[in-house]
């Protein structure tokens, strides 16, 4: 096991992990502020990728396509939330979860009907020429993904610490009734959190498309990966979502390197079950999922 092997798989793992971290972060923020475990999170990732691909194929510059895609996914998510999940009483989280599962199934079918069964790919942001890092060949897109995730996290950190809306959302996550008594519009914060989660998913979808392509059925596996990342890190904890995402990405990269190709798919599921049963607080620690 030499340095080149470690760096090669390490960077791949961190890049994948950064994507999982973003999706898991969106999942966690949504769950904390609106008590919705969003099964459709993965479909928002795919939708973000496909809209960006369509715009870029139609001649839009990459940055415009990406921005338009993130905005479009956020708007769609807001409409979907107001039309469906938002109308189910908050007191019944199970019903809300099942509604998001229904949305996930319907969205997957809609993605297949609109965009077909062919896997599409956004062009890499800065070409395909690999970068040499201590003898390991690194795809530049992997570095873009990592940088993009870091930027997204910095922006989120500013949002939660530096803006009144962000503070209000944190307050709602902490204590719904208390926040409501202080005059924060809790229902509105739930919508915003859902939209924010979907927007993060779309960002992840745009960034990962050049690496892993985008096709309609990628949604559910991504949701499961995001959930696994959240549990491994510590459910409900944003730092945990990032740590868990990175851990899961590294686990996957090295299991692909060491295990036969089909069996390595089992790694995230095995990690999810192991953590749920043996260490439900996760790596970083947080509330125990009930």
């Amino acid at each position, binding site marked *: 096991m030499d340095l080149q092997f470690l760096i090669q798989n390490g960077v791949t793992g961190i890049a994948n992990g950064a994507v999982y971290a973003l999706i898991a972060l969106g999942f966690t923020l949504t769950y904390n502020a609106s008590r919705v475990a969003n099964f459709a999170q993965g479909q928002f990732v795919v939708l973000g990728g496909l809209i960006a691909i369509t715009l870029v194929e139609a001649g839009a510059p990459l940055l415009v396509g990406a921005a338009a895609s993130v905005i479009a996914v956020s708007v769609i998510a807001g409409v979907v939330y107001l039309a469906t999940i938002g109308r189910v009483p908050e007191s019944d989280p199970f019903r809300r979860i099942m509604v998001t599962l229904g*949305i996930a*199934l*319907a969205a997957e*079918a809609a993605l297949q009907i609109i965009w077909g069964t062919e896997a599409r790919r956004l062009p890499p942001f800065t070409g395909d020429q690999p970068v040499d890092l201590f003898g390991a060949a690194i795809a530049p897109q992997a570095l873009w993904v990592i940088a993009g995730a870091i930027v997204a996290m910095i922006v989120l950190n500013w949002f939660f610490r530096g803006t009144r809306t962000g503070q209000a959302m944190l307050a709602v996550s902490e204590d719904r009734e208390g926040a409501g008594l202080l005059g924060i519009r809790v229902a509105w914060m739930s919508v915003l959190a859902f939209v924010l989660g979907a927007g993060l998913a779309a960002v992840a979808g745009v960034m990962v498309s050049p690496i892993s392509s985008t096709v309609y059925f990628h949604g559910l596996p991504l949701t*499961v990966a995001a959930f696994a990342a959240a549990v491994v890190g510590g459910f409900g904890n944003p730092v945990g979502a990032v740590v868990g995402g990175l851990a899961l990405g590294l686990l996957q990269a090295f299991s692909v390197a060491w295990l036969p190709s*089909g069996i390595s798919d*089992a790694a995230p*599921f095995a990690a999810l079950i192991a953590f749920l*049963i043996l260490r439900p607080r996760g790596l970083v620690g947080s509330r125990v999922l*009930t």
Partner: protein
Amino acid sequence: MGWWDRVSSPSRRTRRLPPRALLGVAVVLTALAIPLFVGDRFWLNLLTLSWINLVAVLGLVLLFGHANQISFGHAAFVGIGAYVSGLATMELGVSLLVSVPLAMAVGWVVGYALARPVLRLHGLALAMATLALGELFFIVFRELSITGGANGLPGISPLVFGPLDLTAPEGAYWGTLAVALATAVLCHNVIRSRVGRCLRAIGSAPTAATVSGIDAASYKAAIFAFSTSLAALSGALYAHYVTFISSDSFGLPLSILLVIMVVVGGVRSLWGAAAATVGLTILPGYLGGYGEYSGLIYGALLVLVFMYLSGGVAGLVETVNQELTRLSVPKRPQRSTPAETR
């Protein structure tokens, strides 16, 4: 309520058959008579698959509707049943009279072994843990060489139970319907028994149930094993009916479909689940070449049921029935249905 009420509770005084029982008998007779009128093999095939699905769905009604333990991984146990029974007939050359019970036994044992650790989880955690378990089994089915993986396992023995040859379309229909009916009677009796009441106690108030002396962990493990055993029976029937299985049939989509059938039926209702299972299984037949729209319909149904119709098909019928009763007998105070009979 059905005729088996009388068998299970002899103290009940004899009286005229209630309208519901008559309706039940009429539905069963209609189901039995369908092959006499429907000559089309296409629809007969879809209905046969409905009865096969129903066996697994009924077990989930008990697990989910009554004990309140969700599973998004039951496709794994359908797969275990299919592969165990299929491979037993192919590799060991045994009859279906041996291989199908063997499949059920394996389904029970594996389900019980997994239930002990996994059913300590609740709610969302349980949903995701069972989902992950299902995916792990799916990967095992796909990667093992003996199962043929995604390329499939051809040449499984057809539906011949010893002297009973059910390979003709009508035979398969009646055979699988008989198994589904037997399963329904069994589940109905479990629901109305002490075990059923314990399950509902565990499902609605686990702490109170434990304090009342119910060994919740054992009951949960037992009902999980019961449902996985029925899932394995369903898988075994499927394998011998279709005679070709591939790992793709036993993944997350089947697990989710089984849950949808349970919730659209009304979660706790056996006959509601039956109606939902038949409706959703034959749905792709109506869509013809537009198979991708079935996902859209399944998803939309799930959203609509959980937004407006938590009682599913059974709840809808109950509401309509109460409205009709209210309209036809305006003066008499309405008798509320006891929770037990739902």
